[in-house]
């Protein structure tokens, strides 16, 4: 279908087909949708100018029109370095990835089953689900270009997103719970459900946290997004070109000795693991920080060309509009799985000894990718006093990721978190819990009041 444009233009064609079943629920099931969308994006290179256009209409004249629009969009942009071209890297076979046939075969039935399991577990724990979505996704994408490259990736995702709270008339914040995996492991899902619903059931009558200095233990759900926005973003070719990241050059000390992080698009079980990236390059694994020293940047084809480097297989497409719209997202240089090494501490030991706050969830876990600054509401936290846990909230904790890393101790245990919930195609971070001593927390009341 695309032979004609591949011959006529110097171009790359990305075709995606995403099938998705989603069940919406709260106290019970509310709506089920089963949809699929096919679409394609054509990137053209003409006079070293890169253009891009996408469509979901698979008819010959529309494909031709989309290619011409792509040429048009590129016509007025700056020329890319001469070294830029679409990938010519062979040596990666068609079709691999993390794929679960049982999900693909019965999307709606799987989504319904995991929703019902969630509701049953909630009932058992005296928990009310206020908003829930269970989603089974099967996807396929193919990258072809005029240099004769043709590669295909196939995979599955299972996602459950739940907002839940203990059953009570009191105003209690919901606890957001997200389970995402590439395959359906019933045992793993069941263990996760029981643990999380148990946690929600404990979050009754939270105390207001007074302003003051506290020892803090942040969960991977809180720490991971902060790392992705900073340590995971600053080594990108894009930030190197813009000059706006906080990592200036390789060899600089950017974190304390002992802090190491890798960018890994091949990580087994990773939520952002693909065998080929969205430009058709093989994904790779590389240390970006080793014992506090910045080791290397990561690239897609475009940003690699600005620095005479090779792509590290970090071209991604994402769409906040949902996984099925992946073809319409722009290709960009992006983190896949950011793997942060754990430390020597045991979370259990820290919690049994500490007098402070354990932060399970916050309002918006994000940091500013230019400055590293963050600030969030401690939404689901516990005041901890030598092993005793009291639900607590209504306070703001802020700082910068750079300062946080200087003062942090890390646990052995790690957890994995996705950057966004909207689309399955997003970066992920595997990181430990982080312990911080004597941090300023702004509360709704003064300490002692």
């Amino acid at each position, binding site marked *: 279908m695309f032979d004609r444009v591949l011959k006529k233009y110097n171009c790359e064609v990305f075709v995606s087909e995403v099938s998705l079943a989603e069940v919406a629920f709260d106290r019970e099931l509310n709506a089920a949708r089963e949809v699929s969308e096919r679409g394609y994006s054509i990137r053209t290179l003409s006079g070293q100018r890169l253009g891009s256009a996408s469509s979901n209409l698979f008819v010959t004249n529309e494909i031709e029109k989309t290619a011409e629009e792509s040429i048009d969009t590129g016509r007025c*942009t700056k020329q890319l370095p001469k070294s830029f071209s679409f990938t010519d890297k062979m040596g990666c076979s068609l079709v691999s990835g993390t794929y679960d046939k049982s999900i693909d075969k019965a999307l709606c039935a799987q989504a319904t089953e995991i929703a019902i399991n969630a509701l049953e577990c909630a009932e058992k724990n005296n928990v009310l689900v206020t908003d829930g979505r269970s989603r089974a996704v099967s996807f396929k994408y193919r990258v072809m270009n005029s240099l004769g490259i043709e590669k295909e990736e196939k995979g599955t995702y299972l996602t459950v997103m739940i907002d839940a709270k203990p059953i009570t008339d009191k105003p209690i*914040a919901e606890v957001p719970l997200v389970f995402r995996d590439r395959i359906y492991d019933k045992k793993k899902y069941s263990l996760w459900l029981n643990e999380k619903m148990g946690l929600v059931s404990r979050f009754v009558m939270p105390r207001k946290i007074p302003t003051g200095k506290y020892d803090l233990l942040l969960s991977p759900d809180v720490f991971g997004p902060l790392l992705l926005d900073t340590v995971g973003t600053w080594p990108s070719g894009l930030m190197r070109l813009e000059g706006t990241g906080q990592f200036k050059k390789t060899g600089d000390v950017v974190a304390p000795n002992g802090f190491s992080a890798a960018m890994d698009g091949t990580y087994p079980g990773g939520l952002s693991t693909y065998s080929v990236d969205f430009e058709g390059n093989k994904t790779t694994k590389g240390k970006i920080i080793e014992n506090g020293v910045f080791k290397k940047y990561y690239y897609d084809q475009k940003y690699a060309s600005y620095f005479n480097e090779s792509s590290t297989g970090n071209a991604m497409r994402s769409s906040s509009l949902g996984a099925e719209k992946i073809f319409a997202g722009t290709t960009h240089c992006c983190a896949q799985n950011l793997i942060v090494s754990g430390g020597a501490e045991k979370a259990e030991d820290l919690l049994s000894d500490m007098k402070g706050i354990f932060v399970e969830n916050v309002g918006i876990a994000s940091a500013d990718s230019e400055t590293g600054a963050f600030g969030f509401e401690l939404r689901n936290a516990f005041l901890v006093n030598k092993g005793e846990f009291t639900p607590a909230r209504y306070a703001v904790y802020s700082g910068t990721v750079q300062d946080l890393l200087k003062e942090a101790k890390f646990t052995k245990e790690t957890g994995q978190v996705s950057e966004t919930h909207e689309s399955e195609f997003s970066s992920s971070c595997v990181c430990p819990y982080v312990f911080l001593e004597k941090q300023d927390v702004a509360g709704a009341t003064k300490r002692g009041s």
Partner: protein
Amino acid sequence: MQDTLLSAMNYARGLGKVSYADARTIQSKTTSMIISTKEEGAQSSSSFGVSIRVLAGGMWGYSSTQSKALADLKAAVESAHKAALVAAAHKKEGIEIEPRKAAIGKARVFGKQSFFDMPFEERRKILSEMVDFAKQDKIIFTQASASASKTTKHFANTEGSVIETDIERTRAGITSVARSAAKQAMNYDVFAVQGGFEKILALGLEEFSKSVSDKAILFLSSKKPPKGKTTVLMSPSVGGTLIHEVFGHAAEADWIACGRSLLRKKLNQKIASDIVSIYDDGSIPGAWGSVYYDDEGTQCKKNALVENGMLKQYMHTRETAKKLGMPPTGNGRLQDFTHTIIPRMTNTCLEAGDMNFEEMVSLVKKGIFVDRYTIALEDPAGGSFELKTLGGYHIENGKFTAPLNRATLSSSSFIETLSNVVGLSKKYGRDSSGMCGKGHENWVPVGNPSPHILIKDLTVGGV
């Protein structure tokens, strides 16, 4: 196309346990361009799809197709029907909607100078000028962007309604990053309108671009916010976002119906100070969040939600209206043809007050003025909220003093926050019109017109 949709609806009527069905075609086109001090990029996209919704066995089933052929639409109807029945087997309480007469409607909004029709050379010239306007000493990076979308929808249902809407939206934005020896700071601004690019040009792009860089440079010398409970004066952009997040989401009727919102059972009760009146209106001509007819074919109108601090109404789909025994309000919206319809805001407006801005500043003995926001999150069940701001000023003894660093605003109760509103300006400013996601996705354009707001006792933290 509408004849095909009506034929598909006739087909749906004949399937088992179907009490209602509707269908909508959504054809959209977007075009965008970004120019920064380092690189340039442009993109266009087009898509077409049909969303089918079937109410069968008391359960909604959704399906979609990218085809216009009746046979494919019928297959999508069957798929939606099947999805509804699979899940209906596990449902205790069936969904119902109030039947109504067939409606016919049409709405079109186009600009005089469409961004689509502007040659790429002209687009590039305008954005390059914006980047140049924003260049200043200490500014290390600037990026200007502009985009436009045209969305055409045809709607039909089993009641015989036929609606057509055709809407063009245009946006422009600029981001600047400033750096000093000790610090780096970022600022951005976005202007979003319904209609064409002439409205963007009328804004005055030189002033718009320069002011973003001026503030980024100002933030280099900003000082950390006070910690704990503080009096906060908000710009219309931050104030509109606050009303949208703390009140708007809590007044969406699906969250009322499932017991998620603290506004449940609070109709005709006081939930805000006397000076607070809020309405939602999807019919304001040319406003960013206007849709004129919602995605269930209900005509939009002005709905008073809060009058002088008293809660008067929620925002409904046909389903929630039936469930709560109230009339639909025209707030049933979906992101696109693969998504579901839920109650969503359109343009949620806070009525203006009677104060001058200077008068509001003079009332603050010790507090902060927040000018821009970055992100915000509601908590309708717990009552709190989180609003991250980018900068502003410290206020002491009624006067602006040092520039303010990033601050995070929160509160233990949004009802308490709305009750702590002590002043509203006479004038509206440019609001924070943009895209809003609800729950886990489902992005739609929304507008939040607001005056300046003065609120006491917000919890503030920051670096």
